């Protein structure tokens, strides 16, 4: 077979887990170094109060705590599955906190950190993974769509929703989340074409966590993903996804541009999935421990903590209080998850239609009669 030419870009030749994923990246927007030093970027000035910084830190710690508790609950058989956000806290919190109250988010199935920033009760998210429903929160009230599991489908919904925003003449923007693997789906590319053609107020926020389950980014693209946007006629930017400040600044700028009628932006948040794809996955089959070690040095929480301490924006008491809040949250999530009400069987017939056909109601009655016939029996 004709040999693959050497890739000119930062990514590895296929097949290629294990090689370093962050060589020199002149394009990478960063406002906080892995060591916790605050740096400036000409295009993305950001001034955040110490209080805001502490708030962001608190978000990061709490969503990681939630994630750890959920993973534990799954191991104990209390959840059917869990998709961990470990390592992606900064990308999700930064993006979520960049949104205005009225902006609408379209998540995948991993944006628990964004859900947190939108005020979604973690128990609703737990319910989905426990199998009691498909996500019980109110997507309209929370301005946070239900999780979409079919890869990429939500990017078209976000674009259409943004076309509605245009028609309403509303001062709102839409944030569409997707993964690196999702960029290969035809529908995602169609969403970018639509957004560009109609100059829709939508921002595509791609968390490039280097893998689509076991498949490394090199299998999806031989050039950095943010290059894709230029081909469709709108700006693309790569941001350090483990730097909550950079993500906040870049996403805020893109959402503002969208609200001002400048159309879409594609943001590639360069990060890493520290855990398994989901609790059913076994990363040891396809990636090297060394890679994980390398990324540990870029931990999103450690760098903000270092910055907060060094700058004196936070003290030991603060860090302790956040830890305590985390324990409390984890306890509440555990308790609440175990107490989640089980759905009633007949609820499967509810909401299939706004106006249910007679035949479906007949099936429902049949279902009820059939199960009633077992009443008392044997039990």
């Amino acid at each position: 077979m004709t040999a693959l030419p050497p890739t000119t870009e930062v990514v590895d030749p296929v097949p290629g887990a294990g090689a370093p994923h962050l060589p020199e990246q002149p394009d990478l927007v960063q406002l906080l170094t892995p060591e916790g030093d605050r740096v400036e970027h000409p295009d993305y000035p950001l001034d955040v109060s110490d209080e805001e910084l502490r708030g962001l830190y608190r978000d990061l710690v709490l969503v990681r705590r939630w994630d750890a508790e959920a993973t534990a609950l799954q191991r104990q058989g209390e959840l059917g599955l869990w998709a961990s956000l470990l390592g992606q806290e900064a990308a999700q919190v930064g993006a979520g906190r960049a949104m205005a109250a009225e902006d609408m988010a379209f998540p995948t199935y991993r944006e628990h950190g964004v859900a947190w920033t939108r005020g979604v009760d973690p128990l609703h998210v737990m319910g989905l993974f426990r199998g009691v429903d498909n996500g019980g929160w109110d997507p309209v009230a929370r301005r946070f769509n239900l999780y979409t599991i079919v890869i990429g489908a939500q990017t078209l919904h976000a674009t259409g929703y943004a076309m509605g925003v245009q028609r309403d003449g509303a001062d709102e923007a839409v944030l569409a989340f997707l993964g690196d693997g999702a960029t290969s789906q035809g529908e995602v590319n169609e969403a970018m074409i639509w957004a560009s053609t109609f100059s829709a107020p939508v921002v595509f926020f791609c968390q490039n966590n280097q893998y689509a389950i076991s498949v490394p980014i090199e299998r999806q693209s031989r050039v950095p993903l943010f290059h894709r946007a230029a081909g469709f006629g709108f700006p693309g930017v790569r941001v350090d996804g483990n730097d909550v400040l950079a993500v906040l600044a870049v996403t805020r700028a893109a959402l503002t541009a969208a609200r001002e009628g400048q159309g879409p932006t594609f943001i590639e948040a360069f990060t890493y999935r520290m855990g398994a794809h989901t609790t059913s996955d076994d990363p040891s089959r396809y990636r090297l421990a060394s890679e994980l070690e390398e990324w540990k040095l870029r931990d999103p929480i450690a760098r903000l903590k270092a910055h907060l301490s060094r700058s004196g924006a936070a003290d030991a008491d603060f860090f302790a209080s956040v830890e305590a809040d985390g324990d409390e949250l984890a306890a509440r999530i555990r308790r609440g998850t175990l107490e989640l009400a089980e759905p009633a069987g007949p609820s499967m017939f509810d909401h299939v239609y706004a106006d249910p056909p007679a035949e479906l109601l007949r099936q429902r009655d049949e279902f009820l009669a059939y199960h009633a016939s077992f009443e008392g029996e044997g039990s």
Partner: protein
Amino acid sequence: MAQTLTIGKALNLGLRKALEDDAKVVLMGEDIGKLGGVFRITDGLQKDFGDDRVVDTPLAEAGILGTAVGLAMRGYRPVCEIQFDGFVYPAYNQIVTQVAKLHARSRGRFPMPIVIRIPFGGGIGAVEHHSESPEAYFAHTAGLKVVAVSNPADAYWGIQQAIAHPDPIVFLEPKRRYWDKGEVDVDATPDPLFSSRVVRGGDDVTVLAYGPMVKTALQAAAAAAEEGRSLEVVDLRTVSPLDLDPVYASVRRTGRCVVVHEAPTNLGLGAEVAARVTEECFHSLEAPVLRVGGYDTPYPPAKIEEEYLPDLDRVLDAVDRAMGF
């Protein structure tokens, strides 16, 4: 006030009415603007309602349906035109996994008042992919409703009822009958959208059809009458949900039933109708429910399509077989 209209014109007037009645109605599709659609069903609508409400989209069906979902989430009522039956498949993922499931997924928080207009069926001498009947793919999908109109009055009222309806509807238009004329009384009170209708009374055999095959069934009934055989013809009108009570009543009288459609017979709508009618009318049946459908082949080249499509003779042949049992 009644007027004589073609099915195509009736749809055009119905769409215009829907655009006037509800500012949230948005038409989307390929070439539906200046061109008015390849069948001119949207003729003049972009000129009068603007290109925010009658939108020429990029060339991608998944994009049309996927953005329609987003518009519906925002409170709009998208009416999507798929240019030809054979081109709906790129949108199949959005239709089956999103449009059909979002109301249930959101426990009713996201109604999906989306209408998917599809000119369907053969008989127009077209090239590949322009003559298919995909209704079974949608009828088997829980969360969708499927309607097929057969005449100008149902077209005029049906498209308005479908757009006003809260659930997603695949609205099938009998393309080869677009130019057929009929009376439309715009002041009448229309029949409910999801109801079947006995369009000709008879005693010997009950013949079921929808969309373009209703005319064929009526022609068969007329021909049968000359041989002293009386066929009752039911226009199903709605493919999902099926409204079969009038059919059961009819079959309990006639004891015989023939169902006709252009789609391939294997797992075509006739299979479902046969299964239900047999279960409901088992003791009244003098013969099994017989199916007259397309053959289990891809739609053939235009020169032989008439031999593929059910016609008057094939319906009568099935009627003979039913009587022969």
